[in-house]
C-alpha cells in the first residue's frame, strides 16, 4: 500500500469512527430514534443511560472512556503525524475494554464501544506515522513514577470490579457495568503511560489522564452512595493525583521548551 493510499484510507476510517461516535451520542440523547424502529418506542435500556441515578458513576465512566477515544480521533483530523500520542490515547480505552471483557465475561461487550472501537483500532494500525514515531519516544521519569504510584490502587480497583462482574448479581453486572469500571482503571494507567512516553502530540494525553482521575473522584464525592463511587479519602486522592499529574506534565513541557 502506498503512503498516499494509506493516508486516505486512514482518514476515511477516522471520519467513520467519529461519525459512529456522533450517532451513538445522538441515540443516547434521543433513544426513541432507534427504539421506535426496533419495536420499543421507549428506547429500552438506552433510555436509562444518564437518567437513572444508580447508574450515574458507571455511565460517566463509560462516557469518559469513549470520550477519550473521540478526543484522540478528533486530533487526527488535522495533523495525524503530529498527534501520534492522540491516536494511541484513542486506542487505549478500547484495549482496556477488551482486556476487561477477557477478564470477566461477554456481558461487557456492547455495540457502542465495539462499533466505535473497531475502526479506532484499525486507524491505529493504519496510522501514517505511528510505527516510525516509536523511535522518537522520550519517556519522562517523573510522569512514569506518578503512573506507577497510582497503578497499584487502580489495579486493586479494577480487580474488585472484575470480581463483581464475574459473580455479582443484579443489573449492574448484567449490563457489564463493573467491566466498564475495570476498563476505566486500566485506561487511566494506559493513557498516562502513553502521555509519559512523550511521543508527538503527548500534551493532549496529559490533561486527559488527569481529567479522568479528577472526574471519577469528583463524581464519587457528588454521588457517594452510588455504585462504583470511590470512598471519600480515595476520591480526594484521585483528584489530588490528577492535579499533580497535569502539573508535572506542564513542568516537563516547559522544561522541553527551555533552550539547552
Amino acid at each position, binding site marked *: *500500500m*502506498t*503512503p498516499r493510499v*494509506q493516508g486516505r484510507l486512514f482518514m476515511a476510517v477516522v471520519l467513520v469512527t467519529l461519525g459512529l461516535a456522533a450517532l451513538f451520542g445522538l441515540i443516547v440523547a434521543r433513544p426513541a430514534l*432507534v*427504539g421506535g424502529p*426496533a*419495536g*420499543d418506542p421507549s*428506547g*429500552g*435500556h*438506552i433510555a436509562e443511560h444518564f437518567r437513572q441515578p444508580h447508574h450515574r458513576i458507571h455511565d460517566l465512566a463509560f462516557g469518559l472512556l469513549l470520550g477519550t477515544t473521540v478526543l484522540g480521533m478528533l486530533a487526527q483530523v488535522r495533523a495525524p503525524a503530529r498527534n501520534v500520542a492522540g491516536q494511541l490515547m484513542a486506542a487505549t480505552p478500547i484495549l482496556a475494554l477488551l482486556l476487561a471483557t477477557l477478564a470477566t465475561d461477554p456481558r461487557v*461487550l*456492547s*455495540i457502542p464501544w*465495539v*462499533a466505535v*472501537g*473497531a475502526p479506532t*483500532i*484499525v486507524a491505529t*494500525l*493504519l*496510522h*501514517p506515522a*505511528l*510505527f*516510525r514515531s516509536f*523511535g522518537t519516544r522520550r519517556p519522562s521519569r517523573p510522569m512514569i513514577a506518578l503512573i506507577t504510584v497510582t497503578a497499584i490502587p487502580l489495579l486493586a480497583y479494577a480487580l474488585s470490579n472484575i470480581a463483581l462482574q464475574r459473580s455479582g448479581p443484579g443489573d449492574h453486572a448484567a*449490563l*457489564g457495568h463493573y467491566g466498564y469500571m475495570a476498563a476505566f482503571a486500566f485506561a487511566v494507567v494506559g493513557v498516562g503511560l502513553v502521555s509519559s512516553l512523550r511521543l508527538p502530540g503527548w500534551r493532549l494525553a496529559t490533561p486527559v489522564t488527569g481529567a479522568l482521575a479528577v472526574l471519577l473522584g469528583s463524581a464519587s464525592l457528588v454521588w457517594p452512595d452510588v455504585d462504583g463511587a470511590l470512598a471519600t479519602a480515595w476520591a480526594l486522592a484521585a483528584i489530588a493525583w490528577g492535579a499533580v499529574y497535569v502539573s508535572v506534565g506542564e513542568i516537563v513541557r516547559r522544561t522541553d521548551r527551555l533552550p539547552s
Partner: protein
Amino acid sequence: MLRTRSFGSPAESRPPNIVCAYMQLMHGQDDGPPGTPRWAYATAIVVVVLAVAFVVMHLAGGGFVGH
C-alpha cells in the same frame, strides 16, 4: 526515491546491492524510517471481520435496545 545500500563496506565503493533494492521494494519502504508493518494490515482486517460479525449477530438477536 528508492535508495539502495551495500552491506559491509562504504556504499560508494560498490554498485548498489540489487538484493537490498529488491527487498526494500517488496516491503514498500523507500527512503526514511520503516513504515507500517504487514502484520498491522492483517490485524486490521481481522478486527473489521470480528467487529462486523459481532454487530450483525447482536442486532439479529435484538440485543441493542436491550443492551
